[in-house]
């Protein structure tokens, strides 16, 4: 196996993504976790580029950097900085979940480790955005429209739920 540039790039990105994920699990401060996660998300965007999905990568960066920023703000806003002592209960749950995750991962990995498909030349990278656009506006127009409904509903929902209002004041 020769070390092509793509391979190195993949290894680097994958490593960053995984390390980010592992840090998410092991860090204690919320801010640190969130920062670690940013690395993960960004490197995932890089992976997308490797997979000739430039548009998706761009969206990834846009959405997640934006979203993560907000989430981070929330996280800091809502929690006391060092108050993340792990609950004493649930130790067994952790162990069980870990075992489950490992078993699951192995079982799935058996299915994918030699998923060796003869790689065909793909044209995805050519006018990637246009291809996506075409697909969206021909085949996927219905789901596309419904996603907008979904986003609208989510927006309204988020607003009514998160809106700060004084219970007493309203009664007057």
């Amino acid at each position, binding site marked *: 196996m020769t070390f092509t540039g793509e391979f190195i790039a993949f290894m680097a990105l994958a490593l960053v993504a995984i390390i980010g994920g592992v840090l998410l699990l092991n860090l204690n401060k919320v801010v640190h976790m969130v920062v670690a996660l940013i690395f993960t998300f960004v490197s995932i965007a890089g992976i997308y580029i490797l997979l000739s999905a430039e548009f998706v990568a761009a969206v990834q960066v846009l959405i997640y950097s934006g979203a993560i920023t907000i989430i981070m703000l929330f996280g800091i806003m809502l929690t006391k900085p060092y108050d993340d002592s792990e609950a004493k209960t649930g130790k067994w749950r952790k162990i069980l979940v870990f075992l489950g995750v490992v078993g699951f991962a192995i079982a799935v990995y058996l299915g994918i480790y030699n998923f060796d498909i003869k790689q065909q030349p793909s044209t995805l990278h050519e006018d990637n955005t246009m291809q996506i656009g075409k697909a969206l506006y021909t085949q996927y127009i219905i789901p596309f429209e419904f996603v907008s409904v*979904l986003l609208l509903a989510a927006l*309204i*929902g988020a607003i009514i739920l998160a809106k700060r209002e004084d219970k007493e004041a309203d009664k007057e």
Partner: protein
Amino acid sequence: MSYETFSQINWSIMTPEFIILGVIAILILMDLFMPKTLDRKILGWIGITATFAAMVYTAAMAGGPVQSILHDTFRIDSFAIAFKLLILVGGALVLFLAVSYEPKDGVERYQAEFYYLLLTAMLGGMLMTSSGDLVTLYIGLELLSITSYILAGIRKFHPQSNESAMKYVINGSISSAIVLFGMSYVYGLTGTTNLLNIANELAALANSNHVYLLTIAFLMIVIGLAFKISAVPFHMWAPDVYQGAPTPVTAFLSVVSKIAGFVIVIRILLTVFGFAATKGPGSPPILYDMQNYLAVIAGATMIVGNVVAIKQTDIKRMFAYSSIAHAGYLIVAFTSLTTNMFQAIWFYLLAYLLMNLGAFAVIQVITEKAGSTKIAEFAGLYRRAPVLAVSMGILLISLAGFPGTAGFIGKLNIFLGTFYAEPSHYVLASIMIATTVVSYFYYFRVMTQMFFRPAADESKFSIPFGILVVLIVAVAGSVLFGIMPNFAFDFLQNNLDILGDFFK
């Protein structure tokens, strides 16, 4: 897409969805422009009217040919019509409950939102019934789910409501991630999101590695979707969410959302895995191979639902477990994989819809008046409100599956399939019947409270109009379909050739 191509698309088959969508838009606008002091109930009635219009339109499409637009991302086949009708009926009845719901804990300010979010969730369910594409299915699913999360938490000043929404959202997101993960493998092995194309590709599947991967994907999809139908092992959210959510929303979750869940389960499992060969073309499909796994899930669901329900003291929690149990019965019907499966599931869902919504109507009246959801609040109901008590009695009998009610016919139908299938699922049927007997325990405990116990409080009830409508429909329907099930069967048999349409 040019205008011509756009206009050539037969958009008329989406009319029911458009009606609902349009009304949602109208409601949003009306809410914005109505003075704050005005009662929003009128919006609810508009929603109900729209639902009925959609229902009529859908019913009118029955008997027609299979029609699909845009690469099957939207299709109208008999399956879609049959289950869309169920969702619409369920949705309409839930709306009746909703307009009779005396808002508290924050809902009072968002009454209009309450109505149109319900309609939106219903819209998601409708979309799911008539999609032949993974993406559409997924979007429909999420449309339903996300609005449901909001609805569960809409009593924003009520800690239990918040908690229930939070639990719902976390579990729901995990489940949808799992489902998507499974779907991604399905996509990977076929390169398309169109269900029928997927089926075609997979019918020739021969590589054992791919079969393995696909089967793993099958399990992920099944478990992920188990969330929607509240089947074991993804059932545990249900009691907490049902308890905390406003009662009409609980009713919605237990009925409409569950119907939609079964729709997606049937759609995906049957088309994708019902054709995916295990050893090359002509070999038995993965679905048959995995029948035992489904059976285990069905058995566990029935046992858990019924057994744990015995311990409940909260009526809504009890009904949550009861709805888990009923999901189990429905999975039994699915597991049998006979040709009468569609009829069995559809009829059982219809029966379940009627009896469960009727029961929730009563629950809503009682719990609102009492301000508590304890079963003990039903004590002496027969004295206080004989109509409510007798109605509830009939509905409980139907839920328990006694003859003379739709619940019984539904169960018969399931048994018929179970025993007809080769090999017959004797164990599964035995579990089903045994747990049914266990269910008598808790259904009749409510009866005991209503009929045998003295009431702590002798005050009478006033029954709101909406509740009355639901009760009449539910009780009359339960009894009618219990005595004359042919009304439903004939409709299905004469107008809707589900089996013939499904794979077209």
